[in-house]
C-alpha cells in the first residue's frame, strides 16, 4: 500500500437489524488511488461506500480521512462527493443549477462557482446541456452530469456507486473508457463500487474483493487475477470462472507439487515443501490454460458438452470421464460440436492450488 493513507478504515463495525454486517473491517486507500470495491450483489460493498459518505452510521471503529476521524461528521462536511447509481440529479433544476447547488450551500463565491461549472462542463462535454433539465438528457449525459456535480465540489474523496450499471452495454463501454481517461487527468482519490469485474480490472489502481461482508483480497488488478487469495476470488474474477477440480496432492521429483487428477499427474510450479497440511486439495486452472487436442494427444480424454462461441474465442465445456465439467478456451470460432471426443492438455505451470479452507497457493514469481 502507498505510504500515508488518504482514507483509512480501522476496525469498522456495522450492525443492521441486529445482524453484524461488518466486524473489524480495516484497510487503507492511498492519495490519488482509484480504488474499486468489487463483489457480488449483497456483499456489503454499497453499505461500505455509504459509511464513507455518512449516509449510514458506523457502529464501531474509526473512519479517517487524511488522518482525521470523519465518521461523526455530517455527510456534507466530510469533503466527500458521491455519484449515485441512479445519479440522483435534482429533477427540477437545470444542469447548471444541479452543479451549483452544493457550491452555493457551501457559500462559494458566484464567480468561482461559474468558473468551476465551466471547467467541469468542458472536461465532461456537457456544455450544450447546462440549461436543460436532467429529464431531457440521455442516460449517458445524466451520468456525466452526476460526475460533474461531484467534481465541482473539489472533494478530497470521490465516491461512485455502480456509476455505469444503469447504462446499456455499448454506452457502458464508452463511458468506462471516458471515465478511465478523466480519472487519469484528475488524479482525484476515488472509491468506486461495482459488481462488474471488467470495470474493476480496467479502471482500478487497486481492487478490494468482497464476499459475504468480508474482505477477500486487496491488490492490483493483475495481482487479483494472477494470484487470487482464495477460491472465491479465483472464480469471481476472470471472463469465465476458473476451473476448480478436487484431487490428490503428490510431491514430484523436483520438489514441486503434483496434482493427481483421476490418475493423470499434472505437474505444477508450486513448491511442495511450503504447503501446509490439509485434508483435501483442489486444483485451479483458468480456461485459457487448458488446451484442446486430438482425443489421444492430450493428458486426459473428455467429451464436448456444449460450446459458447463469442466470436474472437470460444468456451468449450467438456465432460471428464467421471462427469466433472471443465471449460477450455479455444481462439476463434470453435468447430467442435456436442458429443465430440477430445483430449485435454493442462498447463500445470500456471495452475493454482486451494486447500480445504479455500486458501490459494501459487507458484513463486520468477
Amino acid at each position: 500500500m502507498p505510504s500515508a493513507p488518504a482514507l483509512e478504515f480501522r476496525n469498522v463495525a456495522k450492525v443492521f437489524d441486529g445482524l453484524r454486517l461488518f466486524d473489524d473491517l480495516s484497510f487503507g486507500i492511498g492519495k490519488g488511488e482509484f480504488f474499486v470495491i468489487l463483489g457480488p450483489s449483497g456483499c456489503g460493498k454499497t453499505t461500505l461506500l455509504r459509511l464513507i459518505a455518512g449516509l449510514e452510521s458506523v457502529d464501531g471503529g474509526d473512519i479517517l480521512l487524511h488522518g482525521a476521524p470523519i465518521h461523526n461528521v455530517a455527510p456534507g462536511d466530510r469533503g466527500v462527493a458521491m455519484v449515485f447509481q441512479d445519479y440522483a440529479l435534482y429533477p427540477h433544476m437545470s444542469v447548471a443549477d444541479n452543479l451549483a447547488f452544493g457550491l452555493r450551500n457551501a457559500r462559494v463565491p458566484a464567480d468561482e462557482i461559474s468558473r468551476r461549472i465551466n471547467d467541469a462542463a468542458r472536461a465532461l462535454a456537457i456544455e450544450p446541456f447546462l440549461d436543460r433539465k436532467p429529464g431531457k438528457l440521455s442516460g449517458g449525459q445524466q451520468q456525466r452530469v452526476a460526475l460533474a456535480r461531484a467534481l465541482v465540489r473539489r472533494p478530497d474523496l470521490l465516491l461512485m456507486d455502480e456509476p455505469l450499471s444503469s447504462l446499456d452495454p455499448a454506452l457502458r463501454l464508452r463511458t468506462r473508457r471516458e471515465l478511465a481517461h478523466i480519472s487519469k487527468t484528475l488524479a482525484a482519490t476515488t472509491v468506486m463500487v461495482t459488481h462488474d469485474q471488467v470495470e474493476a480490472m480496467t479502471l482500478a489502481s487497486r481492487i478490494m474483493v468482497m464476499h459475504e461482508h468480508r474482505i477477500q483480497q486487496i491488490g492490483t488488478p493483475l495481482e487479483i487475477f494472477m494470484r487470487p487469495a482464495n477460491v472465491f476470488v479465483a472464480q469471481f474474477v476472470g471472463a469465465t470462472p476458473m476451473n476448480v477440480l478436487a484431487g490428490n496432492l503428490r510431491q514430484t521429483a523436483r520438489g514441486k507439487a503434483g496434482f493427481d487428477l483421476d490418475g493423470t499427474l499434472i505437474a505444477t510450479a508450486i513448491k511442495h515443501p511450503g504447503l501446509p497440511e490439509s485434508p483435501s486439495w483442489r486444483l485451479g486452472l483458468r480456461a485459457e490454460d487448458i488446451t484442446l487436442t486430438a482425443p489421444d494427444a492430450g493428458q486426459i480424454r473428455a467429451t464436448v458438452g456444449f460450446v459458447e462461441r463469442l466470436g474472437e474465442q470460444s468456451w468449450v465445456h467438456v465432460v471428464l470421464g467421471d462427469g466433472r465439467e471443465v471449460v477450455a478456451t479455444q481462439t476463434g470460432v470453435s468447430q467442435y460440436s456436442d458429443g465430440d471426443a477430445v483430449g485435454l492438455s493442462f498447463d500445470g505451470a500456471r495452475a493454482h492450488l486451494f486447500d480445504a479452507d479455500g486458501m490459494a497457493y501459487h507458484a513463486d514469481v520468477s
Partner: protein
Amino acid sequence: MTERRGWTHLLFVLPFLAVYLWLLVYPLLTGVSLSLHRANLFGGATFIGLENYTRLFRDATFRQALGNTVLFVALCVPVLVTVALALALALNRAGRFAAALRSIVFASSVLSVTVMTIVWRQVLTVDGGLLSHVAQGVGARPLAFLSDPHLVLPSLVLITVWWSLGLPMILFLSALQQIPRSVYEAAALDRATPWSVFRHVTLPALTPALLLVIAYECALQFQLFGQPQLLTQGGPNGASRPMVLYIYETGFNHWDVGYAAAASQILFALILVVALVPQLARRLWGRA
C-alpha cells in the same frame, strides 16, 4: 378503414358520452335557460331576460351569502392545504406509528356530513358542549361558536378542515413517495439545509399535486352546504349562510326556481374561474 375505426372509437366512449350529455350538459343548459325565466316549482315560466341577475345583485341576502362563501373558501382552503401538507411531510415515513396516524387522519373523511356535524355539535354547542365544559373548568366564559356571528364561519372552517384533511394528505403523500431517497442523500452531501431541501427538492416535486389539491378543494368548498344546513341553518342572521344554502332556500322553500337557477349560474362561473386559475398559473410559469 380509417373511417370505420373512427366509428369504433366513438362506440367505446358512447356510454360515458351519453351519461355526460344527459346528466350534466343537458341540465346545465336547462339551468341557464331557467335562469332567464320567472318560474316556480309548479310550472309556468315567463321569459324575463337578465332580470333575475339584476335582482340578485340588489338582493342583500344573496350578497351576504356570496360574501360568506368567498370568505369561507379563502379561510378554509389555505388552512386545509397547509395542514394537509404539514401532516404529509410529518407522516411520510416508515413505521407502525406513522401508519396508524395516517389512518386516523384519513378516518374522519369516511364519516358522512350528518355524523360529522352531530359529533361537532357536541363539541361546539354553548350549553353543555365539550369546549364550554373545558372553558368553565378553567374559569373562562364559554364561547358561542355556533351563535356568535364572528365565530360561526371560523367554526365551520375548523370542522371542514378536520373533516376534509384525508384526501389532500394522501395525494401529498403519494407525490412525496415519488421522490427517490437518493436525491435527498445527494442534497445531504451537498450541505443543503432542511429549508433548502424543502424549497428545492420537495416543493418542486409537490407542485403538480399542490395545484390539483388547491383547484379541487376550491371547487369543493365553494359548494359548502351540509355543515351550515345541519348545524346553524345559516344563522345567526345569515352569518353562516353560503350560496348553496341560499339557492336551496330560494328554490325549494320559496319555489322561486328561475331566481335560484340564476344564483346557481353565478356560483358555477365562480367555481369555473377559481378552478382554472392554478391550471393557468402552471401554463404561465411553464414549470412543474
